[in-house]
């Protein structure tokens, strides 16, 4: 728990990519770890995801992308979050992400990047350590 409440996480699918089996596995894993998880479902826009993050007052926004569009989507997401005054929310990206893009995403300001085949524990460890759980 963080400040006496459970960690709240939004897991999002942005754009047309329909591969959400990984996102669904992660949602269930995070819940089993005692976190509160909201899953957006498919085909969300950046704007919808940012509004949902505001409304749900989440600590973490996690985006799963397997279509290779992570750079442009991260760019728009971070910009939109800034516009909407979201500062303390953690951002995570997961999916088919080459090493070079992991570095680029982090340089852009994404907090954690977990390419496919990352262990589930790595993700929860990262969240807990960084959110001072």
């Amino acid at each position, binding site marked *: 728990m963080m400040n006496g409440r459970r960690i709240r996480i939004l897991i999002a699918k942005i754009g047309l990519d329909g*591969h959400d089996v990984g996102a669904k596995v992660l949602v269930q894993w995070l819940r089993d770890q005692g976190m509160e998880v909201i899953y957006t479902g*498919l*085909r969300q826009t950046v704007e919808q995801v940012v509004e949902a993050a505001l409304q749900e007052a989440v600590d973490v926004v996690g985006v799963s992308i397997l279509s290779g569009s992570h750079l442009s989507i991260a760019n728009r997401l971070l910009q939109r979050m800034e516009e909407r005054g979201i500062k303390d929310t953690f951002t995570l990206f997961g999916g088919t992400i080459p*090493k070079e893009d992991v570095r680029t995403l982090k340089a852009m300001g994404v907090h954690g990047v977990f390419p496919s085949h990352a262990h589930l524990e790595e993700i929860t460890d990262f969240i807990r350590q960084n959110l001072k759980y």
Partner: protein
Amino acid sequence: MGKKKEGSDVRQVISSLGSPVKVYYSPKDLTEFEYDRDLGKPGDYPFTRGIYPTMYRSALWTMRQYSGQATSESTNERFKFLMSHGQTGLSLAFDLPTQVGLDSDDPLAEDDVGKLGVAVDTLADFERIFEGIPLDQVSTSFTINATAPVILAMYVLAGEKQGVDQKKLRGTIQNDILKEYIARGTWIFPPKPSIKLVGDCVEFCVSEVPRFNAISVSGTHIREYGANAVQSIAIPISIAQVYIEEVMKRGFGIDDIAPLLSFHLPVGGRDFNFFEDIGKLRAGRRLWSRLMKEKYQAKDPRSLQFRFSTGGMGGGLTADQPLNNIARATAYALAAIFSGTRSMNLACFDEVYAIPSDLAIRTSLRIQQVLAYETGVGDVVDPLGGSYYVESLTNEMEAKMVEILESIERKGGIVQEIESGEIQRELARQSYLLQKKLNSGERVSVGVNRFTVEEEERDLEIYKVDPETRDRQIARLHRIKEERDGARVARSLEKLELVAKAEENIIPFLFEPLKAQATLGEIISTLKKVYGEYKEPATV
């Protein structure tokens, strides 16, 4: 690894169905077995041993390896190249916006134009793909579902432009929308009107494009999304019945529709078991023929034949020690051969981390050729038939599939289960539990959770969008919109809307808007006004 029994060192094995697997099987496991009733000769009812009498002794399975992706500019060229090398079966993949009915300039399409396949906004785009390719001499396979009616109409028009009679057009549309709600996600409308559109395509094909395969029901995507071995056959069979009943509602008989259906079914995957995959496909053949005969009173033998191709599932392959995947693919291919597949595509050893290389594609083909020409595994039809174990497994799997079908019926049908999200939730849960078993090492993955070595981490390769492809496509789209007769477009779309509202077959009314260069996005938006849009239920 199972726990050891007390006082013995025999490893316990539990099947994917949760039942204990014996150390060996004997006639005691088949006390009620009757050869003629349960197996019969290959090519005879109930087709357990195969749908044809001589199988690979007459013709080997079709070895179908998909090659890389093409942009809209190169597709036509590639088709011509393939044809000049004697290939007459063309295969066309579309980008995601085309699959979900969005034009290339739609904001939601921004990241996906021209990726994974061709972008088609208008009939002009489609005709360009087939320019100079005589459509009466090729057979084209389209991986398309939600927008299948429009693509079918475009193909008919492309033929017409070449002066090819639609009765001579050959090909396949996937046209299996129901699995898109469970896996893969390229839906547009809610399930009920979508089923109606599947029926429109089939009805139109039966009477107007008789050499076109109007449906290919897929179990492979469902399997990747967590379905177990028997669900990966039972759910597609349940879905196929929805399509059959939709078409029969329109006055067709079972023998008009059943022969047009084929299945694409999974072999391999994250929880692959060699004998279970063979058992499930043999059981599927027997179940289907009994279902068609007993429930639907089918008479035509082709209605009773469970025609399937198999896909060797990439989900079971690993990025670690990738050459191990060649061994995995070989086991998948063997299982597919022993199950009597008619056509096979095998996952490539590098596809977990890269866009399949030519070497990996060729190796998947060579695996099939080595098995076909060097090992004798295809010399005898259903060589495992009569094995105490395989027959007992086949019986068990068929019984389990019957149970699943009955349970789906009891819950109000597969459509109801999709609408409520129940089936999606069940599969998501199973997928998670399997992932946890892999995570903990309870399920062994060689090179990943056992027998690991220190090796440099492999990088992932991704499809990159050429920004020029998108810009060029949008420029083309805008030019067509400027040049076309806007009033004609509007009139034809109004007519389409009326026809859709009247619940008539819409296919004949797609021709006029397409000829007027209405865009795919405009046509789909018009239909959305009538059918509405699908809203995903909560699935996790």
